């Protein structure tokens, strides 16, 4: 079905971004916030409208914008399409995006570079929408790189501090590693399809129809399915912060908090999951890759959760928690439960955006203090933020009936039916999640307030522009999961049915009773961890230190994040730096020396040629000019204006010729 509304969903934020970047300074802050928020709001309305149109007939909507690349074999359109998967994504992106834009107008109120922030945030929205609406790989890659760029720009938003600029660079470079693998996978797929089936195309639909033709192809000793899907998964680990490329995400917290909420929690980092769901037909044909994905996802979930246990920076806790939750999603994809992964993407977008924005509200209130050890007892001075944070924490811990419960439980149930090891990994991580999130909650809102006097005096609840998005997200975190109830409850299972048309959906065959038991168990684990956190951080405050002293080695490993950054520093960064240093010496000594020598030779040649030009060529020209001028001066004297002189010459001449004539012919 043709539909031109899809392009407008992208165009509104894009045009707004361009406008704000060019003219934002001139039109004033109010206008900038209005334009930025309303452009995203309009695109949310359009997205909802398009999704409703899709829901009425379940026809994939296509918007042919223009023919982008055209060769003999390859016709690639700039074409957008809306199916059930991208419908879910655009609703989340534009919905959460709108709320975060509104929130940002309050949060960034004091910021000098207000316009720059909104221009980039809008650009991010446009790029993310291109990513999910693209109906071919090339266009998706445009979005894929575009969101990476915006992420870089926004992480380094406070670039005046060198550390923040470095964090941006780190994110960009680490992503580049993943993107490289992604391109390799993409081009291998293109090549394999082209040579095997004679189909040169990047379109998802075409690839899906012909994917079986490459089953016999081998690339580097692996089957084409395995190789291509592995490469694409590496791309996904870059964007979605999985082992081994997760290191950029915690550093990405250098950006403004709403950016962390939108880009580094709710939307961009889930694009890896989206890509895997989009290509579920390919990944499903590569069991080896799925195995790798599930283990990488599970280990990431576990390790990130342990690192989150010992963080003191409130945003860092949330950052590691994001990595951990993303691991959960990959875990689900890895066991072929793509729909469950996608479900967790949606609920996670709600409660993690809520938590980040809540943390932003806390940070805003505490005069930009991020260390939880200096907070405490904030629940009386920030009542709205407190309740919001409570809801977020309950949701992420998987408490019934908040959003996280449904998605996490679904994933656990799928894991149980696939592999008990993975299930154990996941439920252990769920316990850790509950523990560190309640730790964060208790450290921030319970106990004594340890802020210094001036910050304490400035303590204030956030303005409505921030609390209203927070309340909306809190409502979504409560009810967002109610679209996929566990199998033992006789309620709606809307979400998997919705996705069925575009993603492979599996329903596990275990009994309802087993599912009920497991659900109860996971709830118990979450509650147990929460109460343990209560003991540690509210009733017996000295306990954490005692524990820390007892397991010093473990604590140190956690606190130093498994030394991954140091290992990367030693393995990649330092060799790279010293290589560039020696290359730079080579460059300065030899390359520049050669160039300078050449320039000296050239200067000599030019000097000789210049002399020839100056003395011989110019000399000749000047000589003739001089000659003409001198002759002119001499001849000029004859024509002096005295008519008698002319006459005298005339008469003399005539007389001369007469004399000649007479002398010749005789008298």
């Amino acid at each position, binding site marked *: 079905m043709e539909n031109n509304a899809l392009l407008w969903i992208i165009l509104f934020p894009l045009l707004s971004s361009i406008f704000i970047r060019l003219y934002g300074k001139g039109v004033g802050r109010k206008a900038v916030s209005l334009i930025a928020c309303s452009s995203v709001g309009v695109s949310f309305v359009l997205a909802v409208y398009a999704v409703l149109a899709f829901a009425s007939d379940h026809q994939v909507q296509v918007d042919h914008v223009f023919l982008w690349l055209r060769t003999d074999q390859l016709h690639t359109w700039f074409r957008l399409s809306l199916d059930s998967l991208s419908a879910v994504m655009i609703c989340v992106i534009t919905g959460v995006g709108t709320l975060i834009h509104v929130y940002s107008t309050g949060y960034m109120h004091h910021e000098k570079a207000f316009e720059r922030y909104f221009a980039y945030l809008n650009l991010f929205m446009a790029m993310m929408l291109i990513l999910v609406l693209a109906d071919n790989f090339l266009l998706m890659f445009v979005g894929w790189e575009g969101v990476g760029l915006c992420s870089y720009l926004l992480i380094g938003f406070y670039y005046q501090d060198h550390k923040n600029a470095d964090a941006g660079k780190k994110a960009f470079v680490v992503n580049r590693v993943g993107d490289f693998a992604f391109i390799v996978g993409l081009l291998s797929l293109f090549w394999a399809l082209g040579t095997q089936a004679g189909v040169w195309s990047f379109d998802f639909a075409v690839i899906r129809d012909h994917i079986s033709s490459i089953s016999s192809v081998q690339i580097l000793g692996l089957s084409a399915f395995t190789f291509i899907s592995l490469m694409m998964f590496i791309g996904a680990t870059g964007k979605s912060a999985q082992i081994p490329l997760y290191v950029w995400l915690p550093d990405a917290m250098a950006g403004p908090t709403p950016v962390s909420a939108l880009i580094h929690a709710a939307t961009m980092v889930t694009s890896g999951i989206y890509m895997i769901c989009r290509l579920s037909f390919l990944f499903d044909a590569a069991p080896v890759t799925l195995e790798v994905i599930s283990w990488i996802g599970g280990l990431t979930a576990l390790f990130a959760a342990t690192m989150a246990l010992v963080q003191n920076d409130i945003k860092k806790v949330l950052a590691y928690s994001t990595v951990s939750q993303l691991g959960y999603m990959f875990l689900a994809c890895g066991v072929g439960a793509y729909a469950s992964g996608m479900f967790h993407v949606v609920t996670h977008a709600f409660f993690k955006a809520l938590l980040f924005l809540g943390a932003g509200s806390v940070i805003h209130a505490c005069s930009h203090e991020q260390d939880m050890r200096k907070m405490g007892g904030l629940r009386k001075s920030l009542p709205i933020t407190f309740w919001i944070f409570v809801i977020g924490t309950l949701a992420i811990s998987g408490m019934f009936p908040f959003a996280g419960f449904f998605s996490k439980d679904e994933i656990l149930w799928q894991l149980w039916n696939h592999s008990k090891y993975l299930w154990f990994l996941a439920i252990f991580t769920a316990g850790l999640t509950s523990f560190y999130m309640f730790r964060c909650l208790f450290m921030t809102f319970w106990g004594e307030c340890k802020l210094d006097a001036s910050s304490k005096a400035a303590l204030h609840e956030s303005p409505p522009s921030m609390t209203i998005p927070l309340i909306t997200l809190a409502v979504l975190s409560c009810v967002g999961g109610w679209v996929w109830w566990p199998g033992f409850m006789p309620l709606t299972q809307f979400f998997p049915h919705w996705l069925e048309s575009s993603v492979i959906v599996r329903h596990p065959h275990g009994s309802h009773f087993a599912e009920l038991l497991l659900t109860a168990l996971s709830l118990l684990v979450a509650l147990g961890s929460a109460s343990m956190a209560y003991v540690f951080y509210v009733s017996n405050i000295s306990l954490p230190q005692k524990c820390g002293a007892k397991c010093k080695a473990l604590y140190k490993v956690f606190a130093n994040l498994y030394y991954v950054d140091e290992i990367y520093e030693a393995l990649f960064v330092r060799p790279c730096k010293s290589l560039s240093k020696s290359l730079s010496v080579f460059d300065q000594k030899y390359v520049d020396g050669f160039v300078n020598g050449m320039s000296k030779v050239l200067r000599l040649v030019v000097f000789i040629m210049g002399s020839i030009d100056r003395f011989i060529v110019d000399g000749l020209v000047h000589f003739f000019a001089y000659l003409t001028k001198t002759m002119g001066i001499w001849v000029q004297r004859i024509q*002096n204006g005295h*008519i*008698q002189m002319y006459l005298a010459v005339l008469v003399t001449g005539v007389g001369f010729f007469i004399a000649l004539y007479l002398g010749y012919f005789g008298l």
Partner: protein
Amino acid sequence: MIELGGLHSYLVVGAFLFCAGMACVLLKRNVIHMLMGIELIFNASAINFIAFDHFNSMELSGQLMSGQVMGLFVIVLAAAEAAVALALVLAMFQMIKTPNIDDMSKLKG
């Protein structure tokens, strides 16, 4: 020797007049004097025309009188020339306030 009353004696008078006129034109600084010299040259040519006419038509025993007509033309021409030249000289005089030909060198290259 030159026979008196013959063609040559007329030509000598004409040549003398011509030379006097030419000398006047070349050497006098006053424009009016130069114009007078030109008149002399005209008259020298008129004498030559008439003298040649007289003696040549006698030898050809015809009465063509063309030389004498040319003489009359020369007189008319002289009158016309005097009118035009004097007008020019007056206009020049009004401009540069002097009759001296050496000051009239504006048209030099």
